[in-house]
């Protein structure tokens, strides 16, 4: 075996090791959390409220809180995100506008999540007077989800063949009719992928809701958009850092982490699956 063959072999083994490390990390995280969390998950855990100062009971209102926050964020970000994507791909504005908007979208995607939290605190909680509430939290999370929805929608819209648009315009449809009746329906599965991806992202975020929505403990279910809520990610943090019964709380934190992990991972696997099918259809 020549020296350069040995070098190649070693190099390729190193690359394999790097790839394998990813699998080990993912497997390790899922395994440890599942192994210690699974035992505490049962019907009562999923349907009851926390009780006895967070040492017993379940997480039902906490799940509800995460559901409302995520729903609110999507309701806010979806129309804005799809409209931005439509403007950028269909109305093809001038070059500098495209560049300016692309740079803002990229930078918005790179803003640290805790900074979104401070923005939400200043603007929604204080300035607009929504207080620490589902509304403030949803709006904050919505801004964070916006770049994800825009880029997925853009990808979906660009994938729609130009010939379909031209056919519609040739039949006498206006641009808006073409977008509404032809382009959007064709791009819908791709846009849906973006929505699902952002659901996964938003449901797991903690820092943006620290000062805008989350509470350590709230009695019962949230009853209006102005209520403070418990949310799954913040619940885990609170269980690990507050309270007086570390052992019991860690047990519940394991179960909550497993629940959140299962939720977020299944949501993103769904998105990956839909997107893979989508790409196959276009390539075929």
């Amino acid at each position: 075996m020549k020296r350069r063959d040995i070098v190649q072999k070693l190099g390729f083994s190193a690359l394999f090791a790097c790839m394998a490390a990813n699998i080990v990390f993912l497997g390790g995280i899922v395994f440890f959390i599942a192994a210690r969390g699974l035992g505490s998950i049962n019907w009562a855990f999923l349907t009851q409220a926390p009780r006895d100062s967070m040492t017993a009971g379940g997480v039902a209102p906490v799940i509800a809180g995460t559901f409302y926050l995520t729903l609110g964020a999507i309701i806010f970000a979806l129309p804005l995100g799809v409209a931005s994507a439509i403007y950028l791909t269909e109305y093809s504005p001038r070059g500098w506008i495209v560049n300016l908007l692309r740079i803002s979208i990229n930078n918005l995607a790179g803003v640290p999540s805790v900074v979104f939290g401070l923005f939400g605190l200043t603007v929604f909680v204080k300035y607009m007077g929504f207080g620490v509430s589902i509304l403030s939290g949803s709006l904050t999370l919505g801004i964070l989800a916006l770049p994800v929805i825009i880029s997925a929608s853009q990808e979906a819209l660009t994938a729609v063949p130009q010939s379909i648009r031209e056919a519609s315009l040739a039949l006498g449809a206006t641009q808006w009719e073409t977008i509404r009746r032809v382009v959007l329906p064709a791009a819908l599965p791709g846009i849906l992928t973006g929505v699902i991806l952002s659901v996964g992202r938003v449901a797991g975020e903690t820092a943006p809701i620290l000062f805008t929505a989350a509470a350590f403990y709230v009695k019962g279910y949230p009853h209006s958009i102005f209520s403070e809520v418990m949310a799954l990610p913040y619940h885990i943090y609170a269980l690990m850092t507050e309270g007086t019964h570390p052992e019991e709380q860690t047990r519940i934190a394991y179960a909550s982490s497993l629940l959140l992990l299962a939720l977020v991972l299944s949501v993103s696997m769904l998105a990956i699956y839909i997107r893979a099918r989508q790409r196959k259809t276009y390539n075929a």
Partner: protein
Amino acid sequence: MNKRKERIIRYLFTALAFASLVFLVGIVFVLFREALPIFGKVSPKAFLLGKSWYPTSSPPEFGILPLILASLWVTLGALVICVPLGVGSALYLHELAGPRQRALLKPVIEILASVPSIVYGFFGMVILAPFLQDTFNLPIGLCALTTSIILGVMATPTVASIAEDALSYVPRSFREASFAVGADRWQTLTKVIIPAAGSGISTGIILGMSRAIGETMTVLMVAGGSAVIPHSIFDPVRPMTAAIAAEMGEAPVGSDHYHALFAIALMLFLITFAFNIAAELISRRFRLKLGLSR
């Protein structure tokens, strides 16, 4: 009539599309507005280079050097992990994995990216920290080392997916030319393909860094929280994000402490903004170099 409706719709979409810009400008405005009052009390120089962060003692001290150094320290540590792993995985996917392996491995990386940061933090706190403490016989498990490892794992998917994109843009002809002059696969990879994709790969590394330095929940739970200048990788530290997240709840609105925390957030924003702009510029140059239109 129809024409007018079309025009109104066009204006509507234009207005909505500017939302991202409005939010970005809004964030900058809020950060500056809420941060500036602190510089009436502490000079920017004393703020940035001051070595002690005691915001609640009297008189309070607002020097954020320990926090900045802590952020850089754990980010540097994360780079040691995420650069080899991320670039290595990208090369493996691009060079060695067949279509079937790729179909399986790419989702693994994406799923690793979608694990919530609170779960990483929790994992670091209950599994990794005790493990490292036992293994290295450390006085405390929640320290810069633990944080760097977790941040490195979190940043790996970012580096890997952007680097993989960059590799796929390298034209086939480069590879064929290299094989034609007798190079083997490894030589082609290290001498032709990596240099050609170099700036694309560095974009990935910069964005990975940006992700690591802005990460909040993980460092809040795992870094240990003591606001001193780090001297070793085993020191507990308090990065900028952790300070903001941990102290904002207790800082009275409008107090010096409150404004100081916004000033930290402003610093953080400027750092990540610089990273993102750098990534943007480098990736633009990369596309020009390879003659790509996008």
